[in-house]
């Protein structure tokens, strides 16, 4: 087991956008001339070895402790802290899932080390320091942070990254079983009612998203957005104001404090285009904006724009989408 690696960490038996993370992590491990490792907490995803090979992971470190099979923040932070003490990575990277938003800074607090969230790009600076480009001001600006010391921790905004497998032949990663002692950790947070879980598809994976905002006028008009999404084989999304107003569930929210998506097609209907919203869809291949206000910010991001009332345009789009 070599130390000084760049280590990407996932859990929950899923890949969790690991390919995106490996793509950025490999850039850093290459610059530093160190190994790229993948730390898996809990059950090992089936395809792990194959994917690790394609993305140049030298070693999969696996902690199989049963306490890690379901997400428990105290247990996960302790496991990571013990891993870092044993294995002394140079950088620990997470995909910025909801859970990692808590785990990454808590680990940094436990280890007293540098941490940066919302990372869109990573680079190694002239003095060997990790430079993290992150979004700030709800996407209006980008900041570059220099992280000092070791290990350093960064959480990656995965949908900002396009996965790039290795050019040549796959590597064959070694699998190391790592032991940590979690017997003394008492989880302090008790789940009374679990989240009901996502039913079916994830907004983050949708190829087509039709999102609605205040321009819909009132809550019942959101069904138009849903109908158009269905007609295009996609999913319905929403801007934060109509989630705050209770028109739709927050699981539909696209943007800085909601989902970061990267569909092929994003139709923004009655959405003004505040940066905080656009952060959640700016990576879409094609953005279509429908808004009454020709000066609405959303048109700056869009490939196609329609200036008009979305309540008269969406029904026509539903008809046109169905007529094929």
């Amino acid at each position: 087991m070599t130390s000084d690696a760049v280590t990407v960490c996932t859990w929950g038996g899923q890949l969790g956008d690991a390919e995106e993370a490996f793509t950025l992590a490999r850039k850093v491990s290459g610059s530093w001339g160190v190994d790229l490792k993948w730390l898996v907490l809990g059950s090992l995803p089936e395809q792990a070895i194959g994917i690790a090979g394609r993305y140049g992971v030298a070693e999969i470190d696996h902690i199989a402790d049963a306490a890690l099979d379901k997400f428990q923040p105290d247990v996960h932070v302790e496991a990571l802290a013990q891993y870092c003490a044993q294995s002394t990575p140079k950088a620990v990277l997470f995909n910025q899932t909801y859970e990692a938003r808590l785990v990454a800074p808590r680990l940094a607090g436990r280890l007293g080390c540098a941490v940066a969230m919302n990372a869109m790009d990573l680079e190694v600076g002239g003095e060997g320091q990790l430079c993290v480009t992150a979004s700030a001001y709800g996407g209006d600006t980008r900041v570059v942070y220099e992280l000092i010391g070791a290990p350093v921790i960064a959480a990656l905004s995965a949908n900002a990254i396009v996965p790039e497998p290795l050019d040549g032949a796959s590597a064959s990663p070694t699998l190391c079983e790592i032991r940590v002692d979690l017997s003394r950790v008492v989880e302090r947070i008790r789940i009374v009612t679990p989240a009901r879980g996502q039913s079916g598809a994830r907004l983050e994976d949708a190829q087509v998203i039709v999102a609605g905002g205040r321009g819909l006028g009132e809550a019942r008009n959101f069904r138009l957005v849903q109908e158009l999404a269905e007609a295009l084989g996609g999913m319905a999304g929403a801007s934060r104001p109509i989630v705050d107003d209770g028109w739709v569930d927050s699981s539909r929210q696209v943007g800085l404090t909601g989902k970061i998506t990267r569909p092929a097609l994003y139709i923004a209907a009655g959405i003004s285009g505040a940066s905080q919203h656009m952060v959640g869809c700016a990576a879409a291949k094609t953005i279509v904006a429908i808004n009454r206000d020709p000066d609405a910010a959303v048109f700056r991001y869009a490939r196609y724009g329609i200036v008009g009332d979305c309540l008269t345009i969406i029904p026509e789009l539903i008809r046109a989408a169905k007529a094929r």
Partner: protein
Amino acid sequence: MRIVVCAKEVLDPDAVNNYALVGKLEIGADGKTLTQAAIPRLMNAYDEQAIEAALRLRDAGVTCTIAVVSVGRNATDILRHAAALGADEVACVAADASALDAHGTACLLAAYVRQSGGADLVLCGRQASDDDQGVVPPLIGERLGMPVVTIARTVELVQSSDGRAVRVTRVTPDGDEVVEVRCPAVITISNELGAPRYPTAARRMAARRVQPKAVSADELAVLPEDLQPRVKLARQFVPQVQGKCEILSGSTPAEVADRLMARLRAESVI
């Protein structure tokens, strides 16, 4: 019980956004800070909602002292706003906030909590609307050895078999989750809590005379080396937005709709 709410002064994010939208957002000669002197400074909106969460606990009948603390050189305005909203104590830990990283800020805030009589609950906004990092609350939790519950929609006090606890409804991508945690704990509040109250004119008038308690790092027994940043802001820039929007038009909504669908099909987008 004692509730400490941590509040940060930020540039008004809506004003920043408005400058960005008209392409007038600029970074100064230092390569790090926004040049717009006209952008108002105000309390981070999520922190205001954290104060609202504390006030709702009081409204629900919880006997509590609410202290609001900020770190900076001059947080008087936002702390007076906190007093107008109903904070019992307001304090400012004097420090050059731009020279601190999240660890330094968390170190000062945790030291304040300890020195000012502890806390049964530390409430913070889920993130600050300037850097969007959201790491200070978990760092405070680690420093104080408190559990951290993030992104709360509601917070209520419950009596558990082993003492005082809070029940928190968290907003997760999989829907709401309800958790319980024993006090003391750090809770971060999200916008789903709802709009904070607006202070009455009388309260605002009275708050004008409030002088926030000034606390120094020395008084908190925080050493300069504890505040050495591990994260340094190297630069800040305004990303380019590729604005090549083609506006589609037609004599009727139907015509425009057909035109758009034809384009999307021709480009194999759908």
